[in-house]
């Protein structure tokens, strides 16, 4: 009896309460919006609440595992994910023109989703090992480790996830200490790239312009972003309807379950990628800013954990996972309000779907594990 009680106390201690409170608050609001998005309590609403319960236990389970165990497992984890990604190329299931799923017989998985965690984990482990003898070559190796899964995911094709995985990897390299001398040119390339897209808008989207790296539909998404009215019933439809939804919300919103855009079926994908439109329509600018504030708190808490971490592994992992949250939120909301192209990135804690929630839960659990570990070491010193 006492043993059980102690176990419970230890289990409770594994939880980082500020992080948990923020995540719980976000999930609660997410469930509320889901109820509105499905127009009542249909089955997806019930299923999503079950997913949340499962996700909570996964988070807890991951939080309990000591980080250095995870560090040891990192190469294996990454290797398996890579094998699965290659498996998708040969044995993947195709739906809606993309091959993303792998049927392992007992379960259907999306290996690109696992990579979101596996890649930062591997890089954190790698930089921890090379801590004392870090050289320029290490960054080249790290870069290759990022590019391989990135390319595999791009050709599925799944630009949204590839972008997330790639950026997560680059963030890890940045936090591990890539020289600022190299960073500045990278930043310049990014600025020039985006600038030239805006500059050559006119010619870029002409039908005979061939985009070397990207698929036709990906070109379409970028072009639609530049001018959504070009294709109002096709590709532009998503963006037009979601901006109308967000804009019609005004300062205070149209009220819970009272947004016409969402309730009358005008917002496409309103339970998944475009759920923020439903939220902003019904809860207005105040609601949307509050939500942004909550997400900011989540990311900042992640950064605090990173700074307090006692080793390179913890620092790199915690900081890059926090950046993964940031990219999720920024890309998703940016796409809903029409400043980023429509790529399939869900809004954390809000969008319907079990796989994304599990990934989130693992990420939050990892952050908690790092946090608890550094607290314990601080207490020992």
């Amino acid at each position: 009896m006492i043993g059980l009680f102690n176990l419970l106390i230890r289990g409770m201690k594994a939880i980082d309460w500020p992080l948990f409170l923020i995540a719980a608050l976000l999930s609660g609001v997410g469930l509320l919006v889901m109820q509105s998005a499905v127009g009542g309590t249909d089955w997806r609403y019930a299923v999503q609440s079950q997913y949340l319960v499962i996700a909570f236990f996964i988070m807890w389970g991951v939080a309990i595992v000591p980080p250095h165990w995870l560090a040891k497992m990192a190469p294996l984890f990454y290797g398996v994910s890579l094998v699965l990604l290659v498996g998708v190329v040969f044995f993947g299931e195709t739906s809606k023109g993309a091959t993303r799923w792998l049927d392992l017989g007992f379960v259907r998985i999306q290996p690109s989703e696992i990579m979101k965690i596996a890649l930062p984990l591997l890089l954190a482990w790698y930089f921890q090992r090379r801590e004392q003898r870090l050289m320029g070559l290490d960054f080249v190796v790290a870069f290759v480790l990022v590019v391989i899964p990135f390319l595999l995911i791009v050709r599925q094709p799944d630009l949204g996830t590839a972008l997330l995985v790639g950026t997560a990897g680059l963030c890890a390299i940045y936090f591990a200490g890539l020289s600022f001398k190299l960073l500045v040119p990278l930043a310049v390339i990014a600025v020039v790239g985006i600038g030239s897209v805006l500059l050559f808008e006119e010619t870029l989207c002409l039908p005979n312009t061939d985009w070397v790296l990207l698929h036709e539909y990906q070109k379409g998404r970028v072009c639609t972003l530049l001018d959504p009215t070009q294709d109002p019933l096709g590709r532009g439809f998503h963006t037009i309807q979601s901006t109308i939804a967000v804009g019609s919300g005004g300062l205070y919103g149209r009220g819970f379950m009272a947004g016409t855009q969402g309730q009358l079926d005008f917002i496409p994908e309103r339970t998944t990628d475009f759920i923020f439109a439903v939220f902003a329509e019904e809860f207005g600018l105040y609601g949307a800013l509050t939500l942004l504030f909550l997400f900011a708190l989540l990311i900042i808490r992640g950064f605090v954990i990173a700074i307090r971490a006692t080793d390179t592994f913890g620092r790199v992992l915690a900081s890059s996972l926090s950046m993964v949250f940031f990219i999720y939120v920024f890309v998703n909301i940016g796409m809903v309000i029409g400043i980023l192209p429509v790529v399939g990135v869900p809004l954390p804690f809000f969008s319907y779907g079990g796989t994304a929630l599990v990934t989130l839960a693992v990420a939050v659990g990892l952050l908690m594990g790092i946090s608890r570990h550094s607290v314990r070491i601080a207490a020992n010193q």
Partner: protein
Amino acid sequence: MFDFKSATQRQRSLFGLRVWIAALVVLLAFGLLGARLWVLQVQKHEGLLKRADSNRTAVLPLPPRRGDILDRNGVVLARNYLSYTLDVVPAEAGKIDPLLKNLNQVVPLSEYQVKRFKRRLADAGRFSLVPLRRDLSDTEAAFFAAQAFRFPGVQLKARWVRQYPQGLSAAHVVGYVGRISEADVQALDANHELGNYRGTDIIGKKGVEKSWEQVLHGVTGIESVEVTARGKPMRTLHRIDPAPGEDLVLSIDMRLQRIAEQAFKGQRGALVALDPQTGEVLAFVSAPSFDPNLFVDGIDHDSWRELNESENFPLINRPVYGTYPIGSTFKPFIALAAMTMGKRDAKTRIYDPGYFEMGKTRFRNAGSVPYGNVDMHKSLVVSSDTYYYSLATDITIDALHDFMKPFGFGQKTGIDLDTERTGVLPSTDWKKKAFKERVQQRWFPGETVSVLIGQGYSAFTIMQLAQATAVLANGGDYHTPHLVKAIQNTALKTQRPTRQEPSHRIALKREHVREVTEALEQVTLTGTARRAFSGVQYPVAGKTGTAQLFNLKGSKYKKEDVDERLRDHSLFMGFAPSRAPTIALAILVENAGWGSEVAAPIAREVFDAWILRDDGALAQSRTP
């Protein structure tokens, strides 16, 4: 030590700087989002709100009309009728309780209807239509129409509702539709058919309504309309008409079906009658029956309990779901097996003292009657058990299994209905799989003895017995049994037959089939079924059966002493006219006693109805 610490601290502060930069990027990015939100929700708010409130196109589904179900002569078994319904849009209706109270003065609402409406309301979207009442009379509809302005958000509509005019008759064949459930939605989603069900709220749940759902449902059309802020359609922009579901023409003959149902006189049981030349199902009885109309709009609690908790299990589809020992009706097939395998000649005689001994066990004839010298012919006519017991030394259970399998025993017959069960055709393999303990997995020769008279481990559906009878009647062709004879285009009334070639043929010697048929003819002339078939105008081949449920261990079976539910099942299998059969059937009446007393007279009525004209004279030919 000191150096190390300072190095770590330097590293930390460098890392800290990098995090601060990242935080700055996050802040800037969120600032950008915030700014854009401000532009949309404050600056452009008015314009976007106007756009949201006006001039929008909505894509509305146009659900197809469900196909009708007809019998082979065009009698309607399932159709749609136009019904006035009241639906409520919650967003426009305001407070529900006063609304319902006022509405009740114009159109009466029952307590159950109100309760059901509130349950649906809780699950529905604010702008969706929630059904409140259907089947308003013309007067009620007119009353409401005159006062409709008092009830904003309540809509009077004319809508197609499914109806089963035959009620209890053939209910297990037709099945029923019901409201689409969560499980249905997930199944449709998995088959990528959910889109085709937008705007449809019913789906086939049982019977042909379920197994032929895809043909009956049709293809949903699309209408793009301009809608107002409240979602009211203003004008049509673009329209793709729905393709209505096709009608199904069943092979069932409703006249025959009714006669067969009435012949059961309220007893529990199953009957399947087939056309042995095509595999068409002519009659299919599961008694007792239920009224499928109860399910269309969601069954009420009391009716559901009454059906579900009845000890007569009216909802069970007995012919395909009930598995039974089939007793002596198995013997014609055993006789055929013995001859085909060369273990018995038609003329081989066995001495029957009233029992058969194997080791120390004595297996008795029913009633322990001794029949003396018995050949194959006599064994079927008097139904000697001992003749068949004695085969246990010649035929192994596995050889028997392999012979019976192609007839359909212990297999799904392939009829176009859901919930068909396989039953058990025993073999040594089957026993190994069915039992966990080693001791029980072994097959004992004594167990073959009971299987040879249709008892023991064997358990078949009446569908299987009817099918095997049809195969015997036509000399070995296995036509997959089917209920749907043709698919009919709703508009043009043109029909496409569903008939297929026989799926396989069993190699049987013609003279063996003739020997068995002749013996079965004798059964109806002088044998166990002679009373039921006295004065019959056409030759009938048949076999009665009495299947034991309760082993009295040698003491005499007296019907009155045994609990009703443990009494013997009464069975009959047969076909007619025996030399050119147009009908083959199998009948089981649960716990009714002797096959000759209960099941055989039902068969007589059904045969007469199919083969004789209405005035009782022999028809020249009857192949409608």
